């Protein structure tokens, strides 16, 4: 750049030749070493704290024990889960079974009713019944069949008004003929 004046060049030359004096570097060295040792100390103390808190995980037998414990814990968890699943499945099946049992045992309630009716409402104990078991079963089965047939018949009559009317008329006639007699 040729546009600079003589004065500019002189000023630059002067500044270039006036190298800043640092003085003794001993103080600087001492200060730098102090800073370095301070940082080192800080780093060492941080390392020792971390080592104190977590260093034990590097001890061989503790490490192996921790691995074994974690494997056992995982095993226990899986076992527990399988038991829970099995229990759930069992309970699920129990619900179905109990419904079937309810249906199956319904006639037994009717059986009691029947026995009560048969004795004119007096009732008697189960030990007094001398009828064989299979016969009672047969009777109860036919009784339940009769009940269901009767229900269906009533339903059928209610659904068909003409049939209902016809039956009502027939029953009226039957009542009248009874009273005439």
């Amino acid at each position, binding site marked *: 750049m040729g546009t600079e004046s003589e004065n500019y060049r002189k000023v630059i030359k002067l500044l270039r030749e006036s190298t800043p004096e640092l003085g003794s570097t001993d103080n600087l*060295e001492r200060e730098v070493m102090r800073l*370095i040792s301070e940082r080192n100390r800080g780093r060492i103390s941080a390392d020792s704290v971390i080592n104190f808190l977590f260093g034990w995980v590097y001890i061989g037998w503790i490490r192996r024990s921790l691995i074994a414990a974690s494997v056992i814990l995982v095993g226990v968890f899986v076992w527990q889960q399988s038991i829970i699943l099995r229990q759930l499945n069992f309970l699920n099946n129990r619900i179905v079974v109990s419904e079937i049992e309810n249906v199956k045992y319904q006639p037994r309630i009717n059986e009691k009713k029947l026995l009560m009716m048969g004795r004119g409402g007096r009732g008697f104990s189960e030990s007094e019944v001398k009828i064989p078991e299979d016969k009672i079963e047969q009777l109860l089965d036919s009784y339940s069949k009769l009940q269901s047939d009767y229900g269906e018949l009533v339903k059928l009559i209610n659904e068909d008004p003409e049939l209902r009317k016809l039956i009502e008329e027939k029953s009226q006639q039957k009542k009248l003929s009874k009273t005439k007699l």
Partner: protein
Amino acid sequence: MTEYQLIEECRGGNFENFSKLIHVSAPFAFSVAFRMVGDEDNAKDIVQETMVAIWQKIGKIRSAEAYRTWVYRIVLNKCYDQLRRTKNNPEFSADEKTWNHLSEIVSGSNSTPLDNEDSARILSMLTNRLSPNQKAVFILSEIEAMSHDEIAEITGMSKTIIKANLYHARKNISGMVEKYLK
């Protein structure tokens, strides 16, 4: 032991001779820091921090040849930080006394080199209006007499930007010198 050997030893993790490296590196680091921030104490602080940074990271430099460039880069970054911190300080005003003093020196009646205080005062006066980048390029190129390649390596700027910054800096300072120097 040469500077190269010292650096190689420290790069290899042997810090026994690190104090010698401080004695070698501190003067040139101080020169740039002092000329950039214009204050002896701040410049010494920057040199100290630079030396600690060197101690921490010397193992990471590519080669011993790149050492000086690397040190200059650390120093310059710390100078930028310092300049940013002192940005809000009241502006340095070019007083008549300093210009008269400079005029006396330049006129040849007093040809002895400047002491730190005068040097800092005059440099601050001349570079006060420059941006940090312009100041850095001006000091490295004109005062520290570095080549554009070296400056590019230290600052990370392209040569075109260096030339542009240097042009603005020279123009500014030259204008001031013409205006105020008697």
